[in-house]
């Protein structure tokens, strides 16, 4: 077991490292980046024009003047933070603060300025007094580059995490509570009308993209209900900014419990419906399998009440494959539902990722990605281990 775990952890570490290198490389190797917005502002002449020096300072703060491999290791483990022990390598060039410019004069008279070489290099000694993150491996995700410029990424994640946790937590709990009975009943009454209706609904639920479903929900429960003068649900956000009046409920105070609850209903409903569509089929399938097994027939033959056969003999065993879904749940709890959160403007982790990506806040993007990969890997490991617990015939080797 110890050897198995050690090998698994090594494997997990390698996968996470590969994902980190790929994503980091992709983000930084292409043109454009966190300071695009600043550079664009620079184009506007004006009193508060950002100077060459400002740009240089910002580049230094965000480590953009350090070459990519060193930037990556500094981000990963906070090294190199200065010259090696014994002052070794103090004059090694690890970056470039001001790129050199060469004026190319073409025969036809055109002049082009291209960046070539380096005018002011950054050496290991220059890294000495600089602020450096402790490294993502040690739990320091660095600083946000655009969204909360200069503040730690952790702050940003911490303000969004509660919203995702309670949205996902509630919808996952609800889904399990509803999907399991539906699945069991469909299996027990296989090919009944109930089973057919549920099969069709699950089929539609599984093929319906979540954003289409979300938009239909907003259309029905917010727009059309409001236009028809019926009680309606607010279409987005987690907390309102102004009071509003809903028929039958009266004035809803912004930020009150009722306001939060009304706004919570739709995203939670959409997520729950989608989960139920998948999970009820899952429970139905494994329940059908178990119901045809010998020990169920034996129990029935002994004269055990049908209720007890289904709930005690069959259901408990049919839920064993359910643990495979746990890996997904762990990730979902943290990273939220990207698309649903965006449709409903829900300020959770999923939308944070979309916003960060849209605004080139690479440190935030990387932090969320890494947390996601790690949680996914841990989820898979837990699933594998849980399997040996619920089914002793399986052995990890």
């Amino acid at each position, binding site marked *: 077991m110890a050897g198995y775990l050690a090998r698994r952890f090594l494997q997990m570490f390698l996968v996470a490292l*590969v994902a980190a290198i790929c994503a980091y490389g992709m983000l930084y190797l*292409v043109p454009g980046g966190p300071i695009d917005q600043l550079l664009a502002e620079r184009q506007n002449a004006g009193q508060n024009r950002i100077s060459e020096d400002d740009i240089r300072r910002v580049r230094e703060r965000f480590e953009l003047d350090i070459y990519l491999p060193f930037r990556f290791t500094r981000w990963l483990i906070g090294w190199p933070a200065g010259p090696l022990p014994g002052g070794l390598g103090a004059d090694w060039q690890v970056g470039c603060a001001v790129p050199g410019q060469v004026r190319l004069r073409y025969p036809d008279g055109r002049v082009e300025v291209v960046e070539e070489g380096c005018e002011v290099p950054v050496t290991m000694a220059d890294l000495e007094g600089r602020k450096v993150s402790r490294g993502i491996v040690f739990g320091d995700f660095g600083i946000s580059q655009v969204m909360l410029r200069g503040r730690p990424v952790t702050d940003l994640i911490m303000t969004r995490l509660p919203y995702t946790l309670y949205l996902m937590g509630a919808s996952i709990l609800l889904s399990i509570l509803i999907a399991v009975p539906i699945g069991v009943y469909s299996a027990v009454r296989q090919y009944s009308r109930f089973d057919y209706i549920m099969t069709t609904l699950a089929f539609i639920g599984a093929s319906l993209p979540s954003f289409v479903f979300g938009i239909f929900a*907003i259309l029905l429960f917010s727009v059309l209900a409001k236009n028809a003068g019926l009680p309606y649900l607010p279409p987005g956000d987690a907390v309102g900014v102004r009071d509003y009046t809903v028929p039958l409920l009266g004035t809803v105070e912004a930020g009150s419990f009722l306001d939060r609850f009304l706004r919570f209903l739709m995203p939670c409903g959409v997520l729950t419906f989608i989960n139920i569509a998948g999970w009820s089929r899952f429970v139905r399938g494994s329940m059908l399998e178990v119901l045809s097994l010998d020990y169920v027939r034996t129990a029935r033959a002994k004269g055990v009440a049908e209720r007890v056969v289904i709930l005690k003999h069959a259901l408990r065993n049919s839920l064993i494959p359910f643990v495979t879904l746990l890996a997904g749940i762990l990730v979902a709890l943290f990273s939220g539902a990207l698309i649903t959160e965006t449709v409903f403007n829900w300020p959770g982790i999923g939308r944070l990722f979309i916003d960060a*990506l*849209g605004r080139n806040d690479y440190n935030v*993007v990387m932090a969320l990605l890494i947390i*996601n990969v790690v949680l996914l*890997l841990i989820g898979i490991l837990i699933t594998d281990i849980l399997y040996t617990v619920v089914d002793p015939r399986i052995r990890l080797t």
Partner: protein
Amino acid sequence: MATSTTAVPLEEAAPRRSEGQWAIVFRRFRRHRLAMFCVGLLTVLLLLSALAPLIAPYPRDEPNLGGRFLTPMGVDADGGVHVLGTDHLGRDYATRLLYASRVSLGTAFLATAVASTIGILLGMLAGYFGGWVDTLISRFLEIVATFPTLLLLLILASILVQNINAIPIPDWLASFLAFMFAVSEREARIIIAVIMVLAFFGWTGTARLMRGMVLSVRENVYIESARALGASNARILFRHVFPNALPPMIVDFTLGVNGTLVAESALSFLGFGIQDPTPTWGNMLGYAQSYMFQYPWMPLIPALPILIASIAINYIGDGLRDALDPRQRG
């Protein structure tokens, strides 16, 4: 009680001319009425998108600021009737929807075709040769499969689309796709980038399935006899292994088209995929969302085709699965 013997006409008793394999599949598929209906629906959608440049009543991108947000059947200032109304720039919605079908369906089919080809080839190699080839491909597959697909899909799409000029796409490919999708060459490059991204994350399932199929098919006696007759590896792979491993791949491809269609729509909906002015169902829906409070019909128009196509493709896949299953008789 008298026993009676019934005379059997000779023609009936004689074995019927045996049907080909695909004729049986087709006959079984036709019995799945819902799937047949869905084939009809999808054919209509495909025909409409194929004929888009011919039947579209207006130019695709021409804004008409005098006639923005027209209701379906609305009439603009110049007296032109817009069957499905106009969008936020006054562009004819019906026209854009027709072109969007072409882009959305075409992207989904192409991306799935690329992904399936990669998946089938790698799966075949891994399953047939085994050994270090299998180890290498399977490990790579495992790594790609543990990536958080949606996040990387978004990252990759966003950087590729932002830097579209930096990707070396051969001109002939761009102009061919521009012709296929009835878009400009620049737009075609973005579509190619999106197709590449979708294909990169789409092949893992197919590869795993194909590997499993090949592992079981290659144990058959006819493979052994083929080898005994001196057939080369390539001949065995493509002439004997591939056709026998094909049926589940067809179902996988069908369901894959749905997956890519939804993924592309989601990317474009979020603003990271194919961008305006190229219309796709996803980005039309994305824009419509911002105006749905004043103009509630707007999101319905691009949302319904996504819904119809997605459910239709799923039902067709379902019907194909039943028709191709050799355990089912009839």
